[in-house]
């Protein structure tokens, strides 16, 4: 059972490669411009799949703190805010990070409650949010170029457009 | 032994003065008298500046000036020594006379775009003097390229199909050779020596590169300076004869081609060093290449009917004399080749002036059409005769002395084959020059192709060509300045 799970898990990487190949192949060889763009979207999502896959942690949950955890932290923080000079505290936190290699978390009392292994890695998620947005933007721009091509050539088949260009009526 | 070098900006000024003259020439474009006046003034100033350095050089000193260091260990720098002085003197003095001649020629033919002509002419002269006074290989290359580019508009001055194809050939040869051969050699030497391409009397390559490298570099540099017209990279010169005659005269008998041989002389003496070359026995190879060019070009010249083309091939041969003399690597040979720069310049420019004057007065370009012309244009043809004497190397003209020294050089080294080459080619020279003068003066009256109304060319042109002819003869009587300089230079270069 465990082995099977591992294979299925590893399968994500396989599927990512397969999807990427499908997308790339479509981008290169499809004749229809819209098909090319669908291929492009598949290509991009395959990369997203890769990034999200590498963020997965066995036995970890979504990267959002529980309400009670968050509440405890915020309460803790709120007290700190009342007692100490606020600007000083911010500086302190920053300088703690600056110090570098050793886990910065030890510098702050109470943070040891959060076990990093309990949450998935949030960073790839952030990156892929950006990548999704980039993907849809590219798609939008490319589709608008497609439409412009259609108004100018009356077709969205690449070979027909190239034929028209070759016949030299530019 | 040598007095310390003097730091002075004079060489820079001497080069730049004609460049600066471009501005007034362009601004005065519409008023031709003032424009040419400016050219004159610039020429005289230039000559004056160069002449002012003569005493110092004669005293055995040098004048140096570093303009600015452009890459670490690589500067645009000027240095005047005896060899540069010879060339500088010749080029600048001839510019004055050529300006005079151009006025006559250009006005006589009502050429277009005279302002452009005079400005590029001035730029070319700046580059020529820059080459003469360059202190290192890099500066030399810089001005060499500048000259190639500045003369292109002059060569293609007529802007017709012929000019266009001539100009193409011209630039193709010169740029291809310099970019493909000279530039890489330059960088290679730079890497090998770790900078500092300054010319040194004994050369600076000795001990830094091996024999094969030296041979490759030598050949690359010899052929790379294609302005020297060594075969097979000579075809640009006849092609460039489409230019107006003053251009052909000054640039393609004096400035451009002499820049080519001057560069070769500089490289042999200042980069390789005479001793290094003779140790490796590399001179022989070059002498044979040069000898081949001498003979073949003279033979080709015999077959040319177009006067300017015949002169062009003659020039190719004479240039190789200079290279040959240098490659002999003997004191007399080197002296001879340096003197030949000056002597040939005066002689050949006279010939070109004459060719131009004939063309301007009669519109004839071909030798076969010039029968009997001597009766109509006696001054011109007399000058032509004197010029050919000088080029052939017969007494009563300056060319005699340089040729004597060249011959002496071959004997000194025991290279009798070269002696034979020189003598044969002198005969060939005589064979292609004398018939022109002979038929011009001594044909039967009924064969003369000229009407009575044909007159001498524009007075300016006639004055100019008479002047050069007189100087050519004068140099036979008093070759002293050039001789002294050449001798000093040879002594210096041979480390004697």
């Amino acid at each position: 059972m465990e082995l099977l799970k591992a294979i299925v898990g590893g399968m994500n990487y396989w599927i990512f490669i397969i999807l990427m190949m499908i997308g790339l192949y479509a981008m290169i060889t499809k004749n229809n411009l819209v098909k090319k763009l669908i291929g492009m979207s598949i290509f991009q999502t395959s990369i997203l799949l890769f990034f999200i896959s590498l963020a997965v942690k066995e036995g970890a949950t979504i990267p959002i703190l529980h309400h009670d955890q968050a509440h405890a932290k915020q309460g803790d923080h709120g007290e700190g805010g009342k007692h100490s000079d606020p600007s000083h505290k911010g500086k302190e936190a920053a300088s703690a990070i600056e110090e570098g290699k050793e886990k910065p978390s030890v510098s702050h009392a109470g943070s040891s409650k959060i076990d990093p292994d309990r949450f998935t890695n949030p960073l790839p998620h952030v990156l892929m949010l950006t990548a999704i947005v980039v993907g849809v933007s590219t798609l939008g721009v490319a589709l608008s170029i497609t439409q412009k091509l259609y108004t100018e050539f009356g077709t969205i088949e690449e070979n027909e457009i190239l034929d028209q260009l070759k016949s030299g009526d530019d | 032994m040598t007095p310390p070098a003097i730091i002075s900006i004079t060489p820079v000024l001497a080069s730049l003065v004609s460049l600066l003259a471009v501005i007034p020439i362009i601004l005065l474009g519409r008023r031709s008298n003032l424009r040419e006046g400016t050219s004159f003034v610039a020429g005289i100033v230039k000559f004056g500046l160069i002449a002012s350095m003569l005493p110092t050089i004669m005293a055995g000193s040098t004048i140096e000036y570093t303009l600015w260091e452009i890459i670490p260990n690589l500067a645009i720098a000027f240095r005047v020594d005896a060899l540069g002085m010879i060339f500088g003197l010749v080029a600048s003095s001839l510019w004055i006379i050529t300006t005079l001649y151009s006025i006559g020629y250009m006005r006589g033919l009502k050429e277009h775009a005279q302002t452009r002509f005079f400005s590029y002419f001035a730029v070319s002269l700046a580059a020529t003097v820059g080459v003469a006074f360059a202190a290192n290989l890099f500066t030399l290359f810089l001005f060499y390229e500048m000259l190639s580019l500045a003369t292109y508009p002059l060569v293609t001055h007529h802007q017709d199909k012929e000019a266009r194809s001539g100009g193409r050939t011209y630039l193709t040869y010169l740029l291809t050779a310099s970019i493909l051969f000279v530039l890489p050699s330059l960088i290679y030497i730079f890497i090998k020596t770790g900078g500092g391409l300054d010319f040194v009397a004994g050369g600076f390559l000795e001990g830094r590169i091996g024999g094969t490298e030296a041979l490759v570099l030598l050949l690359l540099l010899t052929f790379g300076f294609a302005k020297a017209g060594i075969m097979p990279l000579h075809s640009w010169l006849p092609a460039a004869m489409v230019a107006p005659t003053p251009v052909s005269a000054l640039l393609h008998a004096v400035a451009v081609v002499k820049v080519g041989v001057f560069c070769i002389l500089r490289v042999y003496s200042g980069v390789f060093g005479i001793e290094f070359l003779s140790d490796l026995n590399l001179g022989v190879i070059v002498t044979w290449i040069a000898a081949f060019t001498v003979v073949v070009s003279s033979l080709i010249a015999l077959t040319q009917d177009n006067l300017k083309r015949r002169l062009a091939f003659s020039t190719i041969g004479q240039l190789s004399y200079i290279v040959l003399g240098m490659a002999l690597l003997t004191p007399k040979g080197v002296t001879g080749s340096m003197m030949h720069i000056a002597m040939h310049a005066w002689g050949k420019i006279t010939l070109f002036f004459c060719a131009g004057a004939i063309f301007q007065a009669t519109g004839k370009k071909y030798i076969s059409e010039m029968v009997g012309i001597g009766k109509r244009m006696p001054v011109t043809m007399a000058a032509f005769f004197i010029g050919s004497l000088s080029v052939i190397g017969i007494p009563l003209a300056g060319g005699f002395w340089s040729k004597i020294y060249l011959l002496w050089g071959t004997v000194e080294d025991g290279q009798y084959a070269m002696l034979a080459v020189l003598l044969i080619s002198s005969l060939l020279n005589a064979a292609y020059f004398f018939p022109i003068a002979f038929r011009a003066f001594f044909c039967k009256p009924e064969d003369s192709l000229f009407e009575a109304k044909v007159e001498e060319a524009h007075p300016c042109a006639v004055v100019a060509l008479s002047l050069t002819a007189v100087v050519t003869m004068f140099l036979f009587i008093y070759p002293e300045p050039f001789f002294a300089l050449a001798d000093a230079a040879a002594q210096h270069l041979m480390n004697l």
Partner: protein
Amino acid sequence: MIDQAPAIVLLAPFLTAVLVVLVGMKYERACFPLVLLGLSFSVAAAVQTILQVVEAGTLRYYMGGWPPPFGIEFRIDGLNALVALTVSTVALISAVYSKNRVPEENGDKISIYYTLLLLVVTGLLGMVLTGDAFNLYVLLEVSALTSYALIAMGTRRATVAAFKYAIIGTIGASFYLLGVGYLYIKTGSLNMFDIHEVLVAEDLHRSTTVLVAFILITVGVWIKMAFFPLHAWLPNSYTFAPTTTSCLLGPLVTKVMVYVMIRMMLTVFDPVYTFVQLNWGDIVVWMAVIAILVGSLSALAQTDLRRMLAFLIVAEVGYMVGGVWLANTAGLVGAIYHLIADVFMTLCVFLFAGIVFAKTGKREITATHGLFAKMPLTMAGLAVGALSLIGIPPTAGFFSKWYLIQGGMASGHWGYVVALLISSLAMAVLFFRIFEYALFGVKPAEGHGDHHAGDQGKFSEASASILLPLMGTASLVLLIGIFNQSIVSIITDFLVQFNLADPMFR
């Protein structure tokens, strides 16, 4: 505000872009001054930045105050600073050029056009300044999307080219992103300098994943910079785009990608890894040789002026890639110096092409006939750019070629040296062909040339806003050549840290 200079370099064009949209809705005339203002700020800040870098060494600017690797930082060393200044200067120059041309070429979308222009500059500057591998991807896409649009605003052939560019460009960018992902899976970091530290500290250079990451990033960047044989998108894009677009994109996009390549090879992966461990120098340099030859020889075959210049870009990219992979100081100095010099040379010739198109309405090389007489200043500007491309001193192109050849000889890549020389010759032929047309007018063989020239020969020099950029660029080309020492010293200061003199780099 002085320590904010690195941010201002980028923020000035970016905020202006947004303002231009707002202002442009109501006052279209206000767009151009705004653009100029924004870009001038950018240039000023870039100058300030480079001065600081020269004075105090590497400059670090933490976005959001978060120290790396947690936040995104600008880490600006000599290389960044130089390229950033170059980019903003070129942007300013081509903006000046666009003043009269945009209303003519894209009259109904002036504010949109300017916004895109500023955004592409923002993207390029961001790529240059950032020290974060993923952030580079985002800005790459900003500049890419704008480029697609700017190109698609040209003729209908440009639209076709833009689509092709969009597809190929997306592949390139995605490869880059994938490469960054592969690096991330092994190192867990995104900051370029931090990635490098982890790679070295944990000896990850032997890992296959890192190798694949390197290949992906390199290929992705090559696609984006049109390195042969991945150059198919470039010629048509730059040929048929509006002239303002090609003046902006032609010089900048490929060069910035070369910068990215250098940054990735040297800073992220280690030079020891890229040059010694992989030891692909020979193959890549030979590819560069082919690129140079194909680029310059195809350029010879073109009749369209801008298309010819586009192929020259392909050749120039070969110069730089080859120079970098020579793996010695001279080669790298040459490549980086050429990067900067080439931006201005290319701008110079593209501006000329733009002027010719503006004046004659023709794209062919023959359109230049007789221009010497009519537009001597323009021709002088071209002459400087052309001489620089050929490599005639004292223009900038000579010195870059000098270093490149020196590097090629030092590492024994004679093929590269020969290719450089041949391409110089090819460029000489190309430009002298133009000069000939300009000097002689119509082909003499056609005979009736004079009438022809007379008919349409009434125009003279272009207006100041078109001519000034050309003159400015030409003088910059000269200045960069003359003051090459100070630029080269910045570059060598940057290269010192990599210890390229070590004998293991050959």
